[in-house]
């Protein structure tokens, strides 16, 4: 599903590479934590998968896309197969819950009757049935993140990228969000989650890839956050 082969990324403004000779493979349906301190290269890793950045060296494959070399006009197809969730939710504050989720389908040209059908389904999946007419500011942080997850998942992507999705949430709410991500993972969707949250990583016992100064320093199939440190 994801394959990085000897990937390095050097930003023009920095002397130290953000990623250095990174090779990682993720299979379809896996749940992987990407951990590491701030500046370790987690965000660059995710941005490469989305083709927000192009690697300085090496190859990046996502699904069947040769991400680094694909034509620019095919990038939207790549991104349609990836759902994204962020620490700051990134909801549109002037749109309702339903509209926020529908927006993701409208802008890729899905027909209106499809949207009318699938948006309530996905809102039910994330546990927000009955709240579709609310505005984002009327929701709790956990609920807002659920809306964001619904928006990321509504087009049934092959893969979900989550960048610190629990960073702004209290431990209990974080736990609920993790259950939701697990449920999405069980539908066969690959989930790649960058995080700092020790307790979540430790309690889930999933594969852990750790980055330090742009290099992979650990890759445990059933890891915990702090081992060996």
């Amino acid at each position: 599903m994801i394959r990085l082969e000897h990937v390095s990324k050097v930003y023009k403004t920095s002397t130290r590479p953000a990623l250095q000779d990174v090779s990682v493979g993720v299979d379809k349906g896996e749940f992987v934590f990407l951990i590491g301190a701030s500046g370790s290269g987690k965000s660059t890793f995710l941005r490469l998968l989305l083709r927000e950045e192009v690697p300085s060296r090496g190859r990046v494959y996502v699904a069947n896309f040769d991400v680094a070399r694909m034509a620019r006009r095919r990038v939207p197809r790549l991104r349609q197969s990836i759902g994204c969730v962020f620490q700051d939710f990134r909801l549109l504050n002037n749109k309702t819950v339903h509209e926020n989720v529908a927006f993701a389908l409208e802008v890729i040209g899905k027909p209106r009757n499809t949207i009318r059908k699938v948006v309530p389904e996905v809102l039910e999946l994330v546990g927000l049935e009955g709240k579709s007419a609310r505005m984002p500011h009327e929701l709790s942080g956990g609920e807002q993140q659920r809306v964001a997850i619904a928006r990321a998942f509504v087009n049934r992507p092959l893969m979900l990228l989550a960048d610190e999705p629990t960073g702004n949430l209290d431990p209990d709410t974080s736990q609920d969000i993790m259950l939701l991500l697990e449920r999405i993972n069980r539908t066969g969707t690959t989930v790649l989650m960058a995080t700092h949250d020790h307790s979540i990583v430790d309690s889930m016992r999933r594969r852990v890839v750790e980055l330090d100064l742009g290099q992979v320093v650990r890759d445990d199939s059933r890891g915990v956050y702090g081992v060996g440190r």
Partner: protein
Amino acid sequence: MRASFVFSEVLTGLRRNVTMTVAMILTTMISLALLGLGLLVVRMVDNTQDVYEDEVDVNVYLTNDISANDPECAQDPCAGLRAQLESDPAVEVVSFENRQQAYDRFQQIFEAQPELLKLVRPESLPASFNVQLKDPSRADVITQTYSGSVGVDSIVDESEFLERLFNVFNGVRDVTFAVALVQAVAALLLISNTVQVSAFTRRTEVNIMRLVGATRWYTQLPFLLEAVVAGLIGAILAIGLLVAFKAWFFDSVLSGVFSTGVISPVSGLDILLVSPWLLLTSIGISATTGYVTLRLYVRQ
């Protein structure tokens, strides 16, 4: 592509930046109105030139001696000059006007100004040949050939006067075009700026669109259309301004000039013919500026 989605985005965008939008529309309007005015002057000069094309004559004024003593042009050098002119291959028709006829015509022309008539007696007016040419642009040939011939006092080429008149018009045209150009640069920068501001105020939307895999058309067409719609409104207002200007300036202030028939007037048809160019220019410029701005400042 869902038209309703793009359309509602365009409206929201224009409303959100209403001051910028108004500035953009006004600058575009002024620029295009000046361009239109310049084009109208061009048409006016062209039309006037067409009117005069066949009527520009050369007048050969005769010396006082001939004017006084040969009213029928029966003797040399007058008769010889006439024969020479008539046989000239460049000349179409030659007609002789003696002193008395010139005086009669003068009285007719200045009927309304009796003081002027009192000052002028037949003796102050020369007899002349009015020479119509086969090719009016070759008037200088006649001037060169007959200047200094016996009996010729002076030769006046009417086209020289018209040329001076057209030079004034062309100056007006050049100035309007120059000001229009400066305004167009201002409009261009404003369009570019508005598109950038618009893209910036909606960066959250645009970022989400990019992340969920919307194509460039979906993310950027609303901004492009915003620029085009504003440009189009500017062009329509500019045409309105031209119509108003025609009614006020050409039809009332210049009506006296037009009624003498010296200059051919600006008609509604002229504005109708100029309008499509204003619309096309506006759409072209705003779309290009918008597109280039998005390419340069908004990442895909």
